[in-house]
């Protein structure tokens, strides 16, 4: 398939969505079938989805084109204790080999790498923004579906498979056809206790886990503008759970304030130049979206999931739905199966679900603001003489070494440990249970992560997704609880 080079580098920007603008600015060439060669500004890599890509490069004797546009971390496999002992001390032999393979590959290719135990290491989607590597207008990829997180900065960020990782390493480009535009507007002001996590789960509940398939979602509206960068990252992170590969929030002053002074953000004259470009990154007033969805934040309550798909959401004051209430036979069958797996009964109040474990962490909710919000709930409980319920094992896993350090500076770790939480070292941890942190069969977990799939947090484990505040409240109460009673 022959590719045509483009005549002009940056076509005029009129009537375009933010996605259109970023896409157009990165098309290197396009083929007649609509497929483009898209330039990639930042490639984030980790130990799990890259070994086969590097092996492929070696087999074909191909170099890494832009090691300087690539950043590596160790996050999926790492234990959340004893990291200072180094990779050699990782007990799981396969995990150790994978971590060592990454180390060798990045060294050979000259790629910047934050190894396990380095204070800058952590979950890839926490580290990129924290270091200022993630910037507005960029195209960002990573062999991880939650790469959508970086869209919070107005970057086109998407998860890719390992073959594509190899393609990006070799060419610094991705072959892709353009997606459609979907705008999700969230109007109004979120009530107390309703967080970015609740907005995101409400969106997924509204459009379904396949609702965004084939689209890039742009989030707009008063409730989105009011979110901090951490909140926007949570929102964009969960975009993939709505089926869309990428979510976007147009950059604004909140974005620029977050970025200023981070290690990799431009400095001096470069900052001014970058800023004037970043300010052009918004959807034009006359831009046309293929689909529009509107929600009212003021009408929302804190939500939790009851089933085994992120679309299975219910308000915390609600009840487990009756499978018979679903219209399609497929959905009815899935709901029946989910209730059986989750050990729940149709009609029971969701707050009656007794929990065994609490996990505060993951690329969805492990940033400093998430930990502050959870710690605030925990502090109130401590003030009232309460601690983590005796039958509950609760853990907090900060998203990076720097988040952990910041939290310790603020004394958040003391609050958590005083209440009986386990304060861990950074990594993906029990979000997917590739490391030793996982649920035992039948255990029920209040989790701030992103997937409640069967077996996700451990075979037979039962996951209820919720915000950090809600997870903290659940830890204290010993069952799913309404955080508004703790505020």
């Amino acid at each position, binding site marked *: 398939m022959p590719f045509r080079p483009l005549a002009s580098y940056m076509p005029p920007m009129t009537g375009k969505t933010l996605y259109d603008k970023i896409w157009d600015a990165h098309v290197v*060439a396009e083929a007649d079938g609509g497929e483009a060669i898209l330039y990639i500004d930042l490639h984030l890599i980790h130990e799990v989805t890259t070994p086969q890509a590097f092996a492929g490069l070696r087999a074909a004797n191909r170099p890494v084109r832009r090691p300087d546009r690539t950043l590596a971390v160790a996050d999926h496999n790492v234990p959340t204790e004893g990291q200072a002992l180094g990779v050699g001390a990782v007990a799981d032999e*396969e*995990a150790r080999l994978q971590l060592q393979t990454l180390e060798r590959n990045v060294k050979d290719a000259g790629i910047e790498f934050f190894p396990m135990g380095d204070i800058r290491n952590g979950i890839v989607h926490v580290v990129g923004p924290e270091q200022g590597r993630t910037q507005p207008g960029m195209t960002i990829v990573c062999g991880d579906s939650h790469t959508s997180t970086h869209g919070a900065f107005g970057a086109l960020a998407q998860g890719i498979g390992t073959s594509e990782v190899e393609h990006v390493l070799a060419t610094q480009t991705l072959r892709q056809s353009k997606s459609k535009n979907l705008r999700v507007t969230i109007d109004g002001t979120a009530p107390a206790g309703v967080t970015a996590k609740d907005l995101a789960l409400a969106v997924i509940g509204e459009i379904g*886990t396949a609702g965004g398939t084939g689209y890039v979602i742009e989030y707009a509206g008063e409730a989105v503008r009011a979110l901090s960068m951490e909140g926007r990252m949570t929102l964009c992170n969960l975009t993939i759970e709505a089926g869309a590969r990428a979510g976007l929030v147009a950059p604004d002053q909140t974005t620029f304030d977050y970025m200023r002074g981070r290690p990799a953000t431009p400095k001096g004259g470069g900052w001014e130049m970058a800023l004037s470009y970043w300010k052009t990154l918004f959807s034009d007033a006359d831009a046309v979206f293929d689909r529009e969805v509107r929600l009212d934040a003021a009408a929302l309550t804190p939500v939790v999931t009851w089933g085994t798909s992120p679309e299975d959401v219910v308000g915390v004051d609600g009840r487990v739905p009756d499978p018979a209430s679903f219209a399609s036979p*497929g959905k009815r069958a899935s709901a029946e199966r989910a209730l059986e797996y989750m050990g729940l009964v149709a009609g029971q109040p969701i707050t009656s679900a007794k929990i065994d474990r609490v996990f505060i962490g993951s690329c969805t909710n492990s940033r400093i603001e998430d930990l502050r919000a959870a710690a605030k709930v925990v502090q109130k409980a401590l003030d009232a003489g309460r601690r983590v319920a005796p039958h509950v094992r609760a853990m907090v896993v900060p998203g990076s070494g720097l988040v952990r350090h910041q939290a310790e500076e603020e004394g958040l770790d003391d609050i958590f440990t005083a209440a009986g939480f386990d304060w861990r070292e950074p990594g993906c941890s029990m979000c997917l249970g*590739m490391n030793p942190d996982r649920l035992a*069969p039948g255990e029920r977990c209040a989790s701030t992560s992103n*997937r409640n799939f069967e077996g996700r947090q451990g075979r037979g484990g039962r996951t209820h997704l919720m915000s950090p505040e809600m997870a903290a409240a659940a830890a204290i109460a010993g069952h799913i609880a309404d955080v508004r009673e703790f505020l």
Partner: protein
Amino acid sequence: MRPFTRLDAPVAPLPLANIDTDQIIPKQFLKTVDRAGLAKGLFYDLRFDGEGKAKPDFVLNRPEYKGAGVLVCGDNFGCGSSREHAPWALLDFGISCVISTSFADIFYNNCFQNGLLPVVLKAHEVQALMEEAKGGNHLVSVDLEAQTVVSPSGQTFAFEIDPTRKHKMLNGLDAIGETLQAAKSIDVYEMKRAIAHPWLEGA
């Protein structure tokens, strides 16, 4: 990449919606540095019980579906994680075509990198195929060139596919080699970008 042209093979029905990539291949099988040998992890929690014993009633464990080369599944197959281990495991097990009403984007894309054909049919067609697959004869014929699936009873269902993807799949083309033919365009793009967005190049 292995090409996909035409496949005549038994089809196994898996009538569940939202089969995610964690179900297709659970986490413990991702700790590998190889692409090969992932069949052992395919649908692990569905195929095996807690002691690692095969569950006799799971479709791929039933003798009548031995040698299945095609799966017919519920909506939104392959949602969740981007792990390419999912198509690798399916192929390693011998399944080189999955039929559903819809696929998640990343999984769908990963299939085309590996010669696994994802076929989208209409809901009533998937339902019809599912019913036939439950019967005594499960042999289907999938023809990529003609863009058709012929059911065990001889019903023909046509499917749509992007012509670029079809071309690459039929010929098993290596995407990297092809893109590198446009290396000059990438060079030019980088030079222009260094002028337009100098802060990205450390200026």
